[in-house]
């Protein structure tokens, strides 16, 4: 699993590559939180284009970050989820909390 970070003004973009399960949950949580705890960051975009698999441990990471971002009055988005990942995000209701878009550009244009 690898994480790539990009900051655009108050928005942190996290590009995730790899399967999101319990093995990577802790690392993802720690790496993202230390960046979103930065006062200059308000919004979070999670790019899942290169995530072929997600289970409930991976969903836990998404929901945990959503809670953290909304606690600081920010907004969170998911972009690029593949069909099999998108299905799990819908099934679990995560899409009702975190809006989903096709790509980063769509979110930047909001």
């Amino acid at each position: 699993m690898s994480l790539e970070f990009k900051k655009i003004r108050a928005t942190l973009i996290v590009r995730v590559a790899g399967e999101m399960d319990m093995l990577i949950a802790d690392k993802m949580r720690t790496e993202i939180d230390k960046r979103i705890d930065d006062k200059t960051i308000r919004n979070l975009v999670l790019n899942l284009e290169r995530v072929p698999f997600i289970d409930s441990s991976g969903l836990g990471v998404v929901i945990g970050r959503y809670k953290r971002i909304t606690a600081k009055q920010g907004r969170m988005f998911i972009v690029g989820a593949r069909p099999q990942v998108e299905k799990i995000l819908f099934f679990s209701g995560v899409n009702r909390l975190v809006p989903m878009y096709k790509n980063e550009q769509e979110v930047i244009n909001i």
Partner: protein
Amino acid sequence: MNLRNYAKFEFFSIPENIAFARSCVGSFAAQLDCTLEDIEEIKLVVSEAVSNCIIHGYENNPTQMITVMVSIDTASVLEIVVEDRGKGIEDLPRAMEAAYSTDPTRMGLGFTFMKSFTDDMQVDTAPGQGTTVRLRRSFLKNEEALA
């Protein structure tokens, strides 16, 4: 029902083995002429079952063993059995409720996924005795449709 194929494997209760277990079972299930979507769902339920053994059954003790048995019978039913000899589940009906978890950082969706993406789920558990999860899913329709 007679078995057409059967495999059994055991591994340490470490997170690295979750992907190993779901890939193995996914490959095994592929002989059923199922769709890629079916395989993804099978991998998800295995991931949930094995994660439960590590987190709840063994409370992250890495030296314990998890056993996975997988079989296909002549009626094209895939059966996956995931077993730990850990602490067992005190309150099974509660553990099976959607969004219930003993750990507040977790979503409590493991059993919900296992139930939703299989035809039948049986959980055999007793405090101090470990937990066995038996998941069954029929692929008969898929194979008939292809015939």
